[in-house]
């Protein structure tokens, strides 16, 4: 049995989207998200209706580190937004370990911020994973939602969880290495037998 399946069953029995604070799950934040810059020759991309910030951390438990992700959603519009979050855990080959879990939609008042926690319990095998966090929002029923997708990159080693940068994760994981495709000219497509002197045809002609 894949451990992932057992983990999935374990998580599915618990509430792992934890609301932290405020009335109905959100609080009002008056902090500015200023992006002003006057740097020479630089210019950056504008914002849409909302932005999402992820604050992941590794929290030690008796069974190893758990991943706790604080999701902060900033409604930049003046009206209410109905929002929902989706969480999917994949490994570095793109295989899904935890199918998407979608939170109950909540309403975020205009020009305000909502916060929600998400937890991945300890128990993942060693390796590299990414938690894909999807956020959808709309201002009225029937409207096609605006969505954002962000990733939390994590590495597990003997129960210890680390949070590499996206670039480090790409370099150290298997994400940039595709699986070998068997050589169709070979009678034995098992890459493990690709050793010289193991019965392969030996030729001295210059390859084209």
């Amino acid at each position: 049995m894949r451990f992932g399946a057992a983990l999935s069953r374990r998580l599915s029995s618990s509430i792992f989207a934890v609301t932290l604070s405020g009335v109905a799950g959100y609080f009002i934040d008056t902090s500015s998200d200023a992006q002003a810059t006057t740097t020479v020759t630089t210019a950056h991309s504008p914002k849409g209706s909302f932005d999402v910030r992820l604050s992941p951390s590794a929290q030690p438990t008796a069974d190893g580190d758990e991943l706790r992700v604080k999701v902060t959603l900033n409604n930049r519009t003046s009206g209410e937004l109905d929002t929902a979050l989706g969480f999917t855990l994949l490994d570095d080959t793109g295989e899904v370990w935890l199918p998407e879990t979608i939170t109950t939609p909540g309403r975020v008042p205009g020009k305000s911020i909502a916060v929600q926690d998400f937890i991945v319990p300890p128990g993942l095998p060693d390796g590299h994973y990414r938690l894909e966090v999807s956020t959808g929002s709309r201002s009225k029923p029937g409207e096609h939602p605006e969505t954002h997708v962000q990733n939390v990159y994590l590495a597990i080693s003997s129960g210890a969880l680390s949070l590499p940068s996206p670039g480090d994760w790409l370099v150290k994981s298997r994400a940039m290495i595709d699986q070998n495709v068997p050589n169709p000219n070979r009678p034995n497509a098992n890459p493990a037998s690709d050793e010289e002197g193991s019965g392969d045809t030996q030729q001295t002609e210059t390859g084209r």
Partner: protein
Amino acid sequence: MSNQGNFCSTSLGMDCTNARFPANQGAGNAVPFKRIRVEVWRTDTNGNVLGTQPIGTSYTNLTGAYTVSWSYSSTPARVRVDFVYCHQDNRFCVQSETGLQWYNTMHSNVIPIANQDVPLGSWTWSNSNIGNVYDGASRVWEEAFRYSGQLQSVFNAVTIRYPDSSQGPGDAITTGANKTVSMADDCVSMPMNCIAHEFGHMASYLLKPFKFCGIYSSSFAVTSSEKYCTAFEEGLAQFLAQVSFYWFQAPAPRYCISASACGPSGGWSLETSSGSTCPAGSPRDSMITSARYLWDAYDTVNDSYGDSLNWDYFYLVNKISTWASGTANNQHVVDEPWNSALTSVDDDAGRAASDYQFLIDTAAAPSTTQYQNNCSPGGD
């Protein structure tokens, strides 16, 4: 496999006439790498590269197919195939934030038979965001930029730094002097607002280098009020990028900030023309107003206000390179916002929409109607 949003979707009720990024090329679909560099390298028994140069180099075509000719001194030949995230003719490369060139190793195989074509590869591979960044960037080149002779000359050796941890969520910046675009990890799913928008800035700069007057609002957005010089440069960048997604006959071009499609009412319409009064929520000094003026000068879809101008994309692009140098106020010069020492902004309505109008207008084909139809985006 694509994970990019901002495509046009008829199933959502969007009008995708003349759309260049249909849903079947967007998120969830296998799409080809166009004109990406393919390298064949010798390897040792562990698959590690031998030598400092590939033994064969080629590029994929527009369908993602490739042929590489290579030679090896003996058989069996032990090689691997790398797909290097650089566009043909060195238009751009995708690198890490530390300057490492990204590539995917496709195969490590022993080729026992000489003088024979060896098919290697599958049509569906790559699960990383790097490939999608490359795809978004190549879309801008293939669908828009390559049609400008001036951009053919100047748009090369551009570096995309991805993922760049210095950028906040959804953020991307362009540094023209370094020919570098830096993008946050999540920008990959929003090509219209990230890689395409930043390539628009890069094109604007490379065509005629200038000193950007900066972002002035505390929360820069598509409809935020900005200084006219800011609104125009942002609107120009978006227009230059937008043609990657919709062409001149599109009746419903949309600017979308979302990891999926925006639907028929999501995002912002580029075709909106409200006359002398700006649409609610889109002030005169916002980037979307400048972008809408430029779109009207480009498209063949005429508004009810008598819009019949339709300049070729290459005409509008190439005109940027004719901007006169200088800082003098009210003189339609490229650094008009700045003082002569380029140390402070003394005319934030300089290098704005009205100055660009001065560049593109001819006696036979003025853009007065288009400018006024979009509540006169401003400048001096």
